[in-house]
């Protein structure tokens, strides 16, 4: 059993989602290589070489892969597939974009967002917004898998794998990269943060959303949001937590002014400790909260900030 893991990186640094995907790959019971496709991504490849258990790192360093466009990325993976029994990627925006393309080109039914490996053919994945866990067995000879990164430990960094340069795929003019508007933030990344403070429609305005950010900063945490808060423009889309947003599992999740729709719960219910602050004592969020405070956001959050900064 040989597995290849697509690395998540931004050309400069490797993302911890990669480490979780390597753990899932090793759980298949064989070896795991890592593919870094990028431009000027040597540092990311060096970082991948340190992941414990990795056999070798393949580096395709070329302008064609600078923006991780799905078309060349899928072609690259398909070109490498003959040597591997399984191809895996973290279930990030990039992994979700590219891997089904790979699967279709290999005539394989992808297994999306696995949360457990039962054996080399059998996997557990959530369906219906996490309201059910399905165990599925694949009859495809080759596996194409995306990995829910919160469900796997991050592999340690005690390795020293060799890095091999490989040829890039041809660029595709039918899909051109124009621009990327990244939300610059000094806060930890949402999916990797130890603390997440998330705000919902109950915050009422984007001005008031500053209260949520202030609390997050005080706790060294990331800022999350419900769909309603994003739709209302309180905060950019990349903060959405849920079934169709990001999946998080921090040590502490504080939901402020969020009702607790199943689509939201789907993204945060694996957090270690959940706190809910909501003025409606009947809000469903309290059914999953370890600590609930029935209170108005505008009284409770400033008081919390005062008490924590004292």
């Amino acid at each position: 059993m040989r597995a290849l893991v697509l690395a998540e990186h931004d050309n400069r640094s490797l993302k911890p989602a990669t480490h979780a995907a390597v753990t899932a790959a090793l759980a298949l019971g064989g070896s795991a290589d890592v593919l870094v496709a990028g431009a000027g991504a040597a540092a990311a490849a060096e970082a991948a070489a340190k992941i414990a258990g990795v056999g070798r790192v393949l580096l395709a360093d070329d302008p064609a892969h600078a923006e991780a466009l799905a078309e060349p990325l899928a072609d690259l993976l398909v070109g490498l597939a003959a040597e591997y029994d399984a191809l895996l990627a973290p279930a990030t925006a990039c992994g979700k974009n590219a891997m089904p393309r790979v699967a279709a080109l290999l005539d394989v039914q992808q297994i999306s967002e696995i949360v457990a490996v039962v054996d080399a053919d059998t996997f557990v994945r959530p369906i219906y917004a996490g309201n059910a866990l399905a165990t599925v067995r694949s009859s495809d000879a080759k596996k194409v898998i995306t990995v829910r990164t919160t469900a796997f430990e991050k592999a340690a960094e005690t390795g020293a794998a060799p890095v091999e340069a490989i040829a890039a795929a041809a660029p595709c003019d039918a899909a051109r990269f124009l621009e990327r508007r990244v939300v610059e933030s000094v806060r930890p990344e949402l999916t990797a943060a130890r603390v997440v403070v998330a705000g919902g429609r109950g915050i009422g305005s984007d001005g008031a959303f500053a209260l949520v950010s202030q609390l997050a900063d005080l706790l060294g945490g990331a800022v999350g949001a419900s769909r309603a808060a994003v739709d209302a423009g309180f905060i950019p889309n990349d903060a959405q937590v849920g079934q169709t947003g990001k999946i998080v599992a921090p040590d502490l999740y504080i939901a402020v002014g969020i009702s607790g729709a199943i689509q939201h719960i789907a993204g945060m219910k694996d957090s270690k400790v959940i706190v809910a602050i909501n003025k409606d004592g009947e809000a469903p969020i309290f059914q999953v909260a370890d600590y609930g405070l029935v209170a108005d956001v505008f009284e409770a959050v400033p008081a919390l900030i005062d008490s924590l900064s004292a």
Partner: protein
Amino acid sequence: MKVLVAVKRVVDYNVKIRIKPDGSGVDTANLKMSMNPFDEIAVEEAVRWKEKGLATEVVVVSIGPQAAQDTLRTGLAMGADRALLIKTDAEVQPLAVAKLLKAAAEREKPDVVILGKQAIDDDSNQTGQMLAALLGWPQGTFISATEKTGEGRLSVVREIDGGLETLSLAPPCVLTTDLRLNEPRYASLPNIMKAKKKPLDTVAPEELGVDIAPRLTLVKVEEPPRRKAGVIVGSVGELVDRLKNEAKVL
């Protein structure tokens, strides 16, 4: 520009599903069914293009049982021109859906195929990308804005992990919708009546020459571990105290 939109009939997003006691699957009998919400967004986008004179014809296609006709009629009532039902009672997994949609695209010859980014029942998030690969077309997934630009290209804004990204795509291409692309309309009563008269074709997967045999076998379905409700604290002071001394997360 001709547009093909893929719409799936799913359990309504407001309905809580039940797992069959023997763990053999999810019991969807007698539950309220609706068009997958991301597919409503896809239909809305196509209809808006038509209203703006960008699209000439909008065709909705669904793969599923006879009852998927209702979903197609919803699409017609929203403003699509024609519908195609690829009728089967079998379970059709994303790869097979993509193959059937490829066959439909080869018949209909659209310039753009729009799908939802994710079906809210299987949560696969695969079909659009697979269809693009099978057709050899470029893809714009998780889109929140579209614009027609020079050289007949489309500029699309994508929702990605760090923020937003803009791509320029040369049709024919495949798009998948994200939540912020638009707010779908409700079909008006007169439009629902009119939709009943719009053409709806039915074909079988075999007629399209596609093998839909599933590649994944469902071994079992289980309840996820349930979280228990904890305590309601009386004050901010008590909350801080418990987080520090009991949960030890501060």
